[in-house]
C-alpha cells in the first residue's frame, strides 16, 4: 500500500512537471495556432510574405504608383465583395452583381446625357442596383427559388438590358463634375511623404471598415451568421429570416451599383462588358477570405484581403513578365489552396 502510494505520488509529480513543460510548448504553439485559426491573420501573413518576395525580385513593386494601381484596380471589386460576404455568411450568394454593376453604369450615363444634375443621376443609378437586389431577395425569400437560379436569371436579364439600352455605341462626355467621383484624388501629407489617393480607393476602404465592424459587432448584421448556421433554428429563435434575406440581397445590389457608378466615373464612358466575370472573381475572393458556400462563416476583412491577394498576384505576373493568361490559373490555384488549408484545418480540429 505504502509503496503504491509513493509511486503514485512520484508519478503525479513527474506528470505535473511534464505538464508545465507541455504548457510552455503549448503557449508557443498557440501563437502559430491562432494564426492558423484566424483566416484573416493567415492571409495577412501570406500577403506580407508575397509582398516581401516581390519587393526583392522587382524594383517596381513597392513603389507607390504600383501599389496605388493595385488598390485602384480592386476598389470596385472589394465594394461588391462586402455584399457578397454578407450573402455567403447568411447562406446565399449572388451571380448578378457584375451585370447589375454594368446596368447601373449604363442607366447613370444615360441620365447624365439628358443633362440632369449628378445629384439626381447617381441616386437613380443606385436605385436601379438596389431594385435588382430587391427582386433577387424577394424571389429567393418568398418564392423560395434557390439563389443560384434566381440570380442566374437576373444576371442574364440585367446584362441583356445593358445591351438593349447601350447598343453598340459608347456613351462618353459625362461631365467633369461626375467623372471627378472616380478620377479625383486626395493628397495625403504623412510626415514629409506626400502621396495622392484616388477617391475609389478611399470609398472602398471606408465601406470595408464600416461594414466589417457592423458584420462583426452589430446585433442586426450578426443575425446573418445564425441564418447561415441553421436557418430553421434561426427562425425559431425569432430572427426575421426572410426580411433579413431580402435586405441582404438589396444591400448587395446597392453596393454593386456603388461599384458601377464609381467604375463609370473612373473610366468616363460606358462599356457593355463592365463587370463581366466579376461575380466569380468576387466569390473567389470571399471564399479565399474564409467564407464558406454552406454559410455561417466569413468576414469582410477576410474578403478584402482575399481581393488584395488576388490583385497582388495579378500585378506580380505582369511585373515578372509572365504571360497574363496565366492569371486565371494562379487565381484558381489560390482558391483551391485556400479551401484545402481550411479543410485540413477543420479536419485537424475535428480530431482533437
Amino acid at each position, binding site marked *: 500500500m505504502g509503496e503504491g502510494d509513493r509511486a503514485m505520488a512520484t508519478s503525479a509529480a513527474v506528470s505535473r512537471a511534464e505538464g508545465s513543460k507541455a504548457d510552455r510548448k503549448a503557449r508557443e504553439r498557440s501563437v502559430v495556432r491562432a494564426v492558423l485559426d484566424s483566416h484573416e491573420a493567415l492571409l495577412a501573413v501570406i500577403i506580407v510574405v508575397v509582398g516581401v518576395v516581390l519587393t526583392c525580385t522587382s524594383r517596381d513593386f513597392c513603389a507607390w504608383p504600383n501599389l496605388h494601381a493595385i488598390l485602384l484596380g480592386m476598389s470596385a471589386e472589394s465594394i461588391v465583395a462586402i455584399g457578397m460576404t454578407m450573402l455567403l455568411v447568411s447562406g446565399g450568394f449572388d451571380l448578378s452583381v457584375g451585370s447589375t454593376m454594368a446596368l447601373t453604369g449604363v442607366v447613370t450615363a444615360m441620365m447624365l446625357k439628358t443633362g440632369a444634375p449628378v445629384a439626381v443621376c447617381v441616386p437613380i443609378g443606385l436605385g436601379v442596383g438596389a431594385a435588382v437586389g430587391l427582386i433577387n431577395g424577394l424571389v429567393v425569400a418568398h418564392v423560395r427559388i434557390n439563389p443560384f437560379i434566381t440570380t442566374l436569371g437576373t444576371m442574364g436579364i440585367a446584362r441583356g438590358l445593358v445591351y438593349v439600352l447601350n447598343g453598340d455605341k459608347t456613351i462618353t462626355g459625362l461631365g467633369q463634375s461626375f467623372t471627378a467621383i472616380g478620377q479625383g484624388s486626395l493628397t495625403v501629407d504623412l510626415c514629409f511623404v506626400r502621396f495622392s489617393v484616388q477617391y475609389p480607393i478611399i470609398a472602398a476602404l471606408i465601406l470595408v471598415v464600416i461594414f466589417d465592424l457592423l458584420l462583426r*459587432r*452589430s*446585433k*442586426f448584421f*450578426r*443575425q446573418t*451568421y*445564425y441564418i447561415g*448556421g*441553421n436557418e*430553421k*433554428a*434561426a*427562425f*425559431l*429563435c*425569432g*430572427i*426575421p429570416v426572410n426580411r433579413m434575406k431580402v435586405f441582404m440581397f438589396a444591400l448587395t445590389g446597392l453596393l454593386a451599383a456603388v461599384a458601377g457608378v464609381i467604375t463609370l466615373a473612373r473610366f468616363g464612358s460606358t462599356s457593355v462588358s463592365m463587370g463581366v466575370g466579376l461575380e466569380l472573381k468576387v466569390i473567389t475572393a470571399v471564399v479565399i477570405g474564409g467564407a464558406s458556400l454552406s454559410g*455561417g*462563416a466569413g468576414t469582410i476583412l477576410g474578403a478584402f484581403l482575399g481581393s488584395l491577394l488576388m490583385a497582388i498576384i495579378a500585378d506580380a505576373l505582369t511585373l515578372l513578365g509572365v504571360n497574363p493568361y496565366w492569371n486565371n490559373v494562379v487565381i484558381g490555384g489560390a482558391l483551391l489552396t485556400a479551401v484545402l488549408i481550411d479543410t485540413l484545418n477543420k479536419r485537424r480540429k475535428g*480530431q*482533437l
Partner: protein
Amino acid sequence: MEDREQVPGPILGVEGIVKRFPGVLALDGVDFSLARGEIHALVGENGAGKSTLIHVLGGILQPDAGRIALDGAPARFESPRHAADLGISIVFQELTLAPNLSVAENVFFNRQPTLGLGIVDRRALYGRTEDALRSFGLEIDPRLPAKRLSVAMQQMVEILKALARGPRVLVLDEPTASLGAAETELLFEKIRTLRVSGCSVIYVSHHLSEIFRLADRVTVLRDGRRVDTLRACDSDEAKLASLMVGREVRDIYGARTTEIGEEVLRVEDVHKGKKVRGASFSVRAGEILGLAGLVGAGRTETGRAIFGADPLDSGRLVVRGKAVRVRSPAEAIRHRIAYMTEDRKEQGLFLKMTLRENCVAASLDCFRNALGMLQEKVISTHAETMCALFDIATPSVRQQVRNLSGGNQQKVLLTMWIGTQPLVLIVDEPTRGVDIGAKSEIYQLLRQSAARGIGIVLISSDLTEVLGMCDRILVMREGRIAGEFARGDATEEKIIACAAGVAPEAAA
C-alpha cells in the same frame, strides 16, 4: 461466467475487441456473444462504446484487435456491404432513406426484383413492398416518396429495408426514439416473430423499460468495457441503471419544491391545419404540465402553433390574463413564450457556432448596447454563468456545439430558451437520444425552472418520464385534448387507453 453455455452455438461472437480513436479508447477488449434466435440488448451511457461496437459488427469500422466469429467460424467484416452479404443488417438511428425515391424502391434498395436485363419489375416491387408493409400493420402507399412519410413511418420503412435483405442478425440502434407507443408495440411484436423464425437481434436502447419487455439478455457497456451480461429476467431497471452509470441511481425525476402559482398561459380552441383541431388547456406558474399522446396526435403541431412557428388558424392565447396575438416566433418570444424543439440538430442548435453564440441566439436583443452593437464580454459572462448553472461540460464557451455530447447539447438548447426569460416553456421531447445521466440532469433543470415560476409544458412520448415529472397530464388525440389526469391517478395504462381512444371512460 454467465449462461452462455446454456445457449448452444452462438451465431455471432466477438472476443477482446479493441478500437482506438485519436485520444480515445472506444472499445477496450469487449466480449459479446449472440445466440441463435436471441434478442440481446446492448445498453450503456453515451460514449460507452455501443455505437463503436455496432460499427465494428457492421463492417464500418475495423477493430484494432480481437476476434469475430460468425456461425462458429472466424470472420472479418471488410465493409458494410460485406457484413450485409454475410447476413448482418443494421438499422441506424439516423435515417438513411433516399427522400425522393418511393417507399418500395427504398425497401428494395439495390435489390429490386427484375424482369431480366436489369429492368425493374415494378409490379413485383410494389406488391412485395405492400405485403411487407401490411405485415407491419402499416397502411402506406409503396409508391409514395419516402420524404412524404412522418419520421416514425420512415423509421419503420428503414426497418423493413433491413429485413428485406433476409438477415441472420438484425441490429437495431435506438429504433423507438422517434416512434410513439402504438408503433413501438407493433415493432416489438414484429421483433418477437423474427426471433421465432431464427433471426437474432441486437437491440440498442436508452429505454430500460423496453428492454425488460423484449430482451432475453442484456450486456452493459461502460467506458468501452463490458461491465456485465445478465439475463433480463434476473435483473431490473435500477440494477441496470447503476451498472451503466457506475453508481446507485435513485429517483431521477426529483420532486416539486415550490407551490404552483397563477395561470400563465391559457390556450383556447386552437386550430391549425388538419393536425390541431380545437385544443384548449391552461398552464400555471411553476407547474409541469405533460402533453402525452400517440405520434401524430398533434402535440408538436400544437406547440409550434402556440409559438407562432406555424401560426394558428384560429383560437385564442391568453398570457397572464391578457389576450395576445402570436404570428411568429419573434412575437412569441416577446410575449415570453418559449418552445424548445424536439429536433435538436436540425432545428434547435447552431452546431457549427460556439456555445456562447448558441446561448444567446434567442435573446440577442438583451445583449446589444444603445448603438445596436453586441456586447461580447457580457455575452461571454452570461454563457459562462449558464454553463456553471446548468453544469455543461465544455472546455470553453468558445467550443463549437457540435463537439459536445448529446446531453450537453440538449442543455445548451435549454439555456438558449431559459435566456429568453419565458413565462411559459414548451419542451418537446427534451430527453430524446440522451443517456440516463444527462436525462436526470435535464429533469433537475426543468424542476429548477419550474421552481423559478416558469410554467412548463412537457411534450413527451416517454410515459415513464411524463408520469415521473408532471403535475398534471393531458392526453392528445386527433388534435384535441382527449383527457386530463392529475398526478396521483395517472397510470401508463390509462394514458395509453385514452391516447388510443379505446376507453373513453378513463378520461377524467
